[in-house]
């Protein structure tokens, strides 16, 4: 991918493998400068400084890494989401396209346990696996210039949460009041690929009350 980045596509491209491989590459290149390793679904990108490292050297290092089976304990996050009105601009369309009532869409969306595949696009944006096939909905033809912070949305078979106001082409179902990214915390994003997320429906009153609180791990409501 150009002069300062290499794309790596492991043969076994499970989320756990890609994420673990990314961590191993990050450790192996820790002494080198200007390195970023970005895992995604089935591939990862290594950014490097070509005056410091040759592409061939990185290839040799990557080929030498044997990824151990994913052994890290995963954590679960319960994310409250309010629905309706201005918080849910595409809920009616998703319901129409799936042939369900909006209540049924919300029920199914909140019934699944999603696995975080990767984090990116914008700070803390979790790409989630496990969307009910009846809710798969194509992206918007033309992306919105501004998707409000906290929007939970569907893009094809993927779903995710927009932590910040950015452009975006996914269909917006509702909005979480929680803060997903905080540079003052270490790490600034509490979840990692492999962790799980579940959505739970809240009222607008609860939305107001929870506004700006940090997302926390746990099986039970933390609010």
């Amino acid at each position, binding site marked *: *991918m*150009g*002069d*300062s*980045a290499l*794309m790596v596509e492991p043969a076994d491209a499970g989320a756990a493998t890609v994420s673990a491989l*990314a*961590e191993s590459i*990050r450790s192996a290149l*820790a002494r080198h*400068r*200007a*390195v*970023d*390793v*970005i*895992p*995604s*679904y*089935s*591939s*990862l*990108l290594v*950014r490097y*400084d*070509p*005056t*410091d490292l040759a*592409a061939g050297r990185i290839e040799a290092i990557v080929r030498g890494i044997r990824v151990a089976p994913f052994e890290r304990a995963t954590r679960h996050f319960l994310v409250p989401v309010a629905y309706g009105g201005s918080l849910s601009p595409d809920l009616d369309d998703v319901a129409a396209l799936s042939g369900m009532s909006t209540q049924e869409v919300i029920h199914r969306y909140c019934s699944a346990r999603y696995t975080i595949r*990767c*984090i*990116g*696009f*914008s*700070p*803390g*944006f979790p*790409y989630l696996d496990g969307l009910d096939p009846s809710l798969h909905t*194509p*992206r918007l*033809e*033309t992306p919105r210039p501004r998707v409000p912070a906290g929007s939970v949305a569907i*893009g*094809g078979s*993927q779903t995710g949460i927009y*932590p*910040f*106001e*950015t452009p975006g*082409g996914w269909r917006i179902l509702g909005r979480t009041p929680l803060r997903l*990214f905080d*540079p003052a915390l*270490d*790490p*600034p*994003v509490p979840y990692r690929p492999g962790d799980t997320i579940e959505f739970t429906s809240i009222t607008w009153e609860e939305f107001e009350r929870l506004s700006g609180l940090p997302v926390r791990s746990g099986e039970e409501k933390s609010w």
Partner: protein
Amino acid sequence: MVTRLEIVDAGLRTTVQDAGRCGWEHLGVPRGGALDFAAYRWANRLAANRADLAALECLLAGVTVRPDTDVWAGVTGARQVRIDGRSVPAWSGFRVPGETSLEIQALDGARCYVAFQGGIAVPPVLGSRSTYLPAALGGFEGRPLRSGDLLPLGMAGPMPQVEILRAPTRAITSPLQTRFAPGLRRDRLPEEALSILLSQPFTVSPQSNEMGLRLLGPPLPPGAGTMFSEPMPVGGIQITPGGHAIVLLNARGTIGGYPVLGTVITPDTWRLGQARPGDPISFAAVSVEEARRVTVDALQDLEAATPAALPICGKPGKT
């Protein structure tokens, strides 16, 4: 005593930028930083700084500032520079007396850089002082500067014992021929996409920003079907379903869902940071080997001319 810099007129959009935020892209935090990396480093060099201190980046219009004590400044990317109305040469470093105004106007391209000896001393966030606007991260309160803001400057060494420091070359050239290495995802796009990109003229859309340079021109045939989102390289030329090309710049989304036709070579991404709305852009394909060679030469030349005390963008972040 800390020198303070008053923003008298913030211009159109002025932000604090440095070499960028390394080691956080796996959490979706793009590296960001100064878009025209060469002009940014030269501004620091002219300000008698090591090349990685935080400076002002002004978009499309200039800026007027007033330090409260004498300070040495360096300016690149603008043709009109005045101290209390008196002209100083473009692309130079010079003393600004305390309580006088430094006025910068008439940009060479889309961005100019104004550095001060000691650097802009806003607190670093995740290892960088760069402003990343979508997340209100870094810089001065995470936002563009406003008139009346007071910025602290870092401790400065002795001022240069000369009247003026000059940059030997101007880094900005126009029109822009943009070199790119055709990429991994060519096979996801029709053959004609590459030939249209290479043969047709494009112009810069006013909707461009530091996330991406949007191009206006003949429609490019989009990829068929959908793909899973994947990591995006800086310089990547994305083809949208609507047939538009977007060249991804420093503050791009780290992961995206549109196929990338090729990747612009690093020094040409700096020049794209100087492209103004309406500017013509044409493309030329180079091999990955040539892209690497040209980039290594450009980075080594820049490092020799504008040394940094620390490796640029050298501290990996914690996971």
